[in-house]
Structure formats: C-alpha cells, structure tokens
C-alpha cells in the first residue's frame, strides 16, 4: 500500500502525484520506473517512470498521461487514498557521467521521465541543452523545472502556439550540424515515433543517442518477455536490460507494432470505463 500525498493536474490529461514509498526513494536512481495497479484483484500492471523523489517526505513523484483504463482510474485517486500495488524501482538506472555537451529531448509526457535524467546530467557537470516538444502550448509540462536545470531551453509546438513552430527534430538537427554546438550525447524520451526520428536525425552526425522505451510490460522483472525489443538484431527485455538503449540500434517499427498488440481490446476497456464515468455523473446529477 502506498499513500498518495499530493495530486495536481498539470494539463488537460496529465497528472502529477507524490506517493509515499520510502524504500523506493532510498534505492531509486534517474531512469528507473515503478509498476502499479489501481486494483489488486483485477487491475492491470502499468509502468510509470519515477519523475522525482523527495527524501524528507519519503515520496516519489509520478507524472502520467491519461490514455486508457488504468491511467483513467489512477487519475481518480485522491490525496489520502492508498495505491494497492506499487513496486520498484525497476529497470537499469541511466548511465550518468560528464559527457561534455548533452542534449535532452522530451516529447509530450516524455518530459516527465527526462526531468530526473537532465537533473543528474547537470549535476555531473554536463552542459545541458533541453528541447521540449508538444502538440500545443497547453500540453507542455515541467517547463519551469526544466528551465531551472538547462543551460539552454528550446520549446517547440506543432501548431506554433508557443515557442518555435517545429518538430523537435528541427532544432536537434541544427545543434548537431554546427561543430561548435555538436553534442557528445543526446537523450530522447517521448512517443516512439519521436524517438525514432530523433535517432534518425543524429545518426548521420555520429552522435550517440539514447532513448527510453515504453513497451508493454507485465511483471517488470524479466519473467514474461512481453517487453522484448530488437536492439542491434538482439532480443532485449526493456524492463531489465533497459529501459534505455542506443537509439541507432533500436528497431522502432517492430516496437511500435508490438505496442499495438492489444489495441482494439484496450479501447474497449476504456470505453467501458468512460461509460461508467458517464453513468456516475448522471447519478450525481440526480442527487
């Protein structure tokens, strides 16, 4: 059981929660994640990155986007409620060292997992450039926090409602092209398609690029193989060998196909739960 200590809505469908988990706080490092369930009997096990930790409070921060059944249910938990299942920290921590110049690219909700990594890279002495991308201004999260860390912050929106009207790959390309700004390492976290194109962007310049993969998971301990991906023609398990891999070696197309394994079914589950919500709303009205 893990008590929710704080809850905040960051944008239309993105929430931040601080959850009491003192043991996880003690062991966790940047890049690691937890698995939670909203219901022990019938709930799905979903992975979320540990976006931050607060030692004094003994809490970890989770930032999640509502995309389906479990994240919807999670968003309905409130301060004081207990999460029935929370396990972690899982996965390998990010390899942090002083690379020199690094670029951190975060897309959408990917900024959440990127934040602790950028923090650690900065603390290790790197010169950190951060590129944040989102569909529009309202979907940008953690701008203030990222600004506090980054030596240089670039914001892109698809519709130009804030920052540059560009995809994140455009500024990334400019930075790589210019010998004076060419980074020693790039880390990109966001939707698979964004990570794929970031990797394609840096490849011609030979810039080492790490990505953090968000495959479907069940156990998170290397037992089921559901999270497997092709990396450099080898099968890797994201939960134990990752979640970070060399983006130039990842078979993104296969990964994206595997993410859609249960597609039809999950929209159905969400549909069911939206119907539930509507029903509840109607009940409220009647009261």
């Amino acid at each position, binding site marked *: 059981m893990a008590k929710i200590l704080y809850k905040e809505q960051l944008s239309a469908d993105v929430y931040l929660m601080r959850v009491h988990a003192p043991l996880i706080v003690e062991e966790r490092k940047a890049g690691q994640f937890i698995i939670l369930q909203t219901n022990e*009997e*019938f709930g*799905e096990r979903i992975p979320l990155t540990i976006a931050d930790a607060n030692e004094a409070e003994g809490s970890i921060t989770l930032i999640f986007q509502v995309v389906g059944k479990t994240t919807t249910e999670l968003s309905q938990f409130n301060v004081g409620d207990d999460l*029935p299942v929370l396990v972690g920290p899982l996965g390998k921590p990010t390899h942090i060292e002083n690379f020199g110049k690094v670029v951190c690219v975060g897309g959408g909700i990917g900024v959440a997992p990127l934040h602790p990594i950028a923090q650690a890279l900065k603390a290790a002495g790197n010169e950190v450039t951060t590129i944040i991308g989102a569909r529009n201004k309202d979907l940008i999260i953690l701008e203030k926090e990222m600004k506090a860390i980054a030596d240089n912050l670039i914001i892109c929106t698809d519709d130009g409602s804030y920052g540059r009207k560009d995809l994140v790959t455009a500024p990334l390309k400019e930075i790589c092209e210019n010998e004076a700004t060419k980074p020693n390492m790039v880390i990109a976290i966001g939707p698979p398609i964004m990570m794929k194109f970031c990797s394609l962007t840096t490849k011609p310049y030979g810039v080492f690029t790490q990505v953090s993969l968000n495959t479907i998971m069940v156990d998170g301990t*290397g037992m089921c*193989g*559901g999270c497997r991906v092709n990396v450099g023609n080898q*099968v890797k398990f994201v939960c134990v060998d990752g979640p970070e891999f060399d983006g130039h070696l990842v078979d993104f197309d296969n990964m994206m196909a595997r993410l859609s394994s249960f597609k039809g*079914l999950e929209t159905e589950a969400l549909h069911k739960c939206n119907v539930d919500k509507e029903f509840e709303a109607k009940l409220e009205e009647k009261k």
Partner: protein
Amino acid sequence: MSHLSQAEINEQVKILFDQIFNRTTPLTKKEQLAIPPQMMPAQDENIRRYNLEEVAVGYSAEQARVEAMRCIQCAKPSCISDCPVSINIPGFIKHVAENDFQSAIDVIKETSLLPSICGRVCPQETQCQLNCATGKFNKSVDKAVAIGRLERFVADWEREQGTIKPPIVKPETGKKVAIVGSGPAGLVVAADVRREGHDVTLFEAFHKLGGVMRYGIPEFRLPNDIIDQEVSTLEKMGVKFQKNFVVGRTRKLLDLMKKDGFDSVFIGTGAGLPMFMGIAGENLVGVFSANEYLTRANLMKAYDEEHSDTPFFHSKNVAVLGGGNVAMDSARMALRLGAENVYVVYRRTEVEMPARVEEVEHAKEEGVQFLFLQNAKSIKGNEKSRVVGMECLRYELGEPDSSGRRRPVVIEGSEFMLDVDTVIVAIGNGSNPLVSQTTPELTVNKWGNLIVDDKMKTSIDGIYAGGDIVLGAATVILAMGEGRKAAAAINEYLLEER
C-alpha cells in the same frame, strides 16, 4: 471417449467396495493385484474446455479405499525411494484402506508439507509410481497404485474437515530470517524455519503469493484456493509477507542483512526467464512466451474479461511450441480463451514428451491437436507485423543422443505452412538473473543457476538457496525437497550463531 461419468464410476465402485470391505476373510495378494485401478472422475471434456474449474474432480472415499487396497504393502517399497521426499507411502495408504484418513494425512505430513499440491501436480509416473509393484505385476505403469490421487484425496479430506491446525511454533528466538520468493521452495522454508521460533518475513515480487503455482499452473489444474490455504496456515504461524518487493531492486540482497538485520536469507526465486527459439519472426505481434500468456490469464485473471483490466490476445488458430507441462498448460488455456484450433508442435514423438501423461490425455480429450516430429522454422507476419502463419519442418528420429532419446533429424525440403495467428513459445525457462546480477558476490554456473553446497548454502555465509533457481526449471516436489533441506541448514546455522 473412454471416460465414465461420475455416476457410472460411483456405480462401479460400490460393487467393488462391497466385495472388498464386506467380507470376513482378508483379501489375498493375488486378489488385491486384480482390483482394477480406480479412474479419476473428471469434468466432461466438452464442458470443461470452456471453463476454468478443476478438471480432475478427485476420488470419493469409497474409491480411495478401493484404490488403497491395490497396494500390497511391499516389504522393500520402491515407491518410497522413488519419491523425492520419501513419503512413507505404504504407511499412509494402509490408513486410507482402514478408513483412518486423519492418520493417513499425519503420516504424509511427517515428510511433505504441500500434499494437496504435490498430489495434483507431481509427475507420479516418473517418480513414486514408476516402479510400483502393483504396476509391475500388471505390466503397466498406468496400473500402478494411484499414489498421487490418494495423497490428494487425504489432503483434500483434511481441508474439507476444516480442522487443519497450524504446526506448533517454538518460543521466539529473536533471530530473523528473510525468504525471497513465494514459490513452493520459499513457502516450505517459511514453515520449517518459523516452526523453530525464528522471525520469518517472506518477500515476493508479485502482488500475489505462490510463485509458478499461482502465475503459471492454471486454475483448472491447481485451484488458487489450495495455495491460499497454504498461505493462510503460514499466516497463522506468524510468518510475515512483504508483497510487491523485488529483492535486488527494492532492497539489495546483502542490505537485508546489513540494514534490516536479517540473520539468514533463503533465495527461492525460481526459473523465471523465458527462452525463445531464436527464429525469424519471433518478435511479431501474436508471439508470446508461455510465461506471458499464462501470467496474463492466471495471475492477472485476463480470462475473466468482464472484470479484468489485463487484455489477452484473441486468437483463432494457435501454435504452441514445446512438449512439457508448460506447453500443455498453454495449449489448454488457449482453448479456454476461445481459440478454435490449438496445435502443440513438438519435434520428437509422444513417447519423448516430458509433460505429465495425465495432462497430455486431458489436452487430447479437450481437442488440442498434436503435431509430432515437426518444428517451427520461422514465423510469418503481415504488413502490420501480425502473425499470419508459421513455417514448419518435418523431422524423423535418428540415433540416440547423450540423453538416450533418439535425436530428431530434420527432413530436408519438408517445409510447410501452418495457418496460425498466435504462437506460444513454451520451450523452457532459464534462471532469472535479477538477484545474481545485483549481488556480484553470489556465484552461478554457466546456466545462471546459483551454486550451493550440500547444505544448500550459497557462496555467501548465512545465505541459502533452493528450488528452480538452483536446479533450473524442475518440479514442485523437488523445490519443496530442497526447501526442507535448506530450512534444516538455516535452523542449524542459527543455532550455532547463538
């Protein structure tokens, strides 16, 4: 099918029962050996393939007593030496015949802690029943005394009485023992160590206890109630449980001793590392390890679509690769999840299949189709990377290999396509390296199994291990046997420590 209905079985046993027990003179050995083996009543195959309830229903008291009379109480019983934990088999069976079920269960519990489980899942035909005199006399291992079924009967009988008393716990010693993993090995160590009065905490990565018995072996073969019962006995003894706790991640193994003050640790983390074939197409959508497929269905309850949030893959035609218990469970689960055709693809013949005979029988009855001397060469996908077929090769049996089994040899040019949309890879499990990787001080062999000495001690003082993490994927009873051995060593170690 050859199976009789429950009513027919009851009818038959009544007659036998009267003949055997309502007479004045004892049966001769010859008469005993002539008693026909008692059939296990089972749910009708056309019904059970659509439900998750236990397939084998269990003996009635009459049947159990008739079956018990088939044991001729050998002077030198091979059954005891063939049972990995040396249960006094003729001893308990005699009590069954005499209608004294309480004494029967007491005899079993002298050596075995999980009889209702082992009675259900032990591969008896290769263990206790293999050389049974009654079977030998009747020239078939199928006609051996049904030791496992009798064991299950008395264990179930005790549970139904509701009189199970947790074992007596000695006064607290103040010593703390951590157990990692709640499979059969861990559960048994918990009981045996707690009995000596040590403070026991069991750590489990998952949100449910029982290990493979919970997430792998399906309900229709081993109902969860039975595992719950074992766990609740441990709870009553005062064993503490920490679920959702991954040793090596939530806490480093050595920190359990250094930071949390545990005096000794037992590692029973099992063999949870799925193996794949290494063939083309294995990462396509619709290819699953048996572990994933079964975990979704069992642990996450995906079969209960109305309530469970965890989806399962809706299949029409399923190929299961492998020939062990894991393959049988996957195939039978696929049927229950609605597949129309389920093929078990195995590269040797039925004789070589490692699965328990009863499971193979049940699978056949339920409609699983067996493709022997065939194997997958590659898996084909469509433009959406979804499985649309499996390319197979045919094999023939050649010379015996080092295991004594005839080696399957591929027939060149025998490729053909199997029309499937789902492939379940059930070719075995390796050792899960999570604990050893996060604890470099532990020594492992080339398969990643922990190396232990003859007292189950690992390379670190105070830390013991047993079960699949030491043996590689093995059996419940072997895991239990190792657990008992390790528990004895831990108790001895803590005594010396004092």
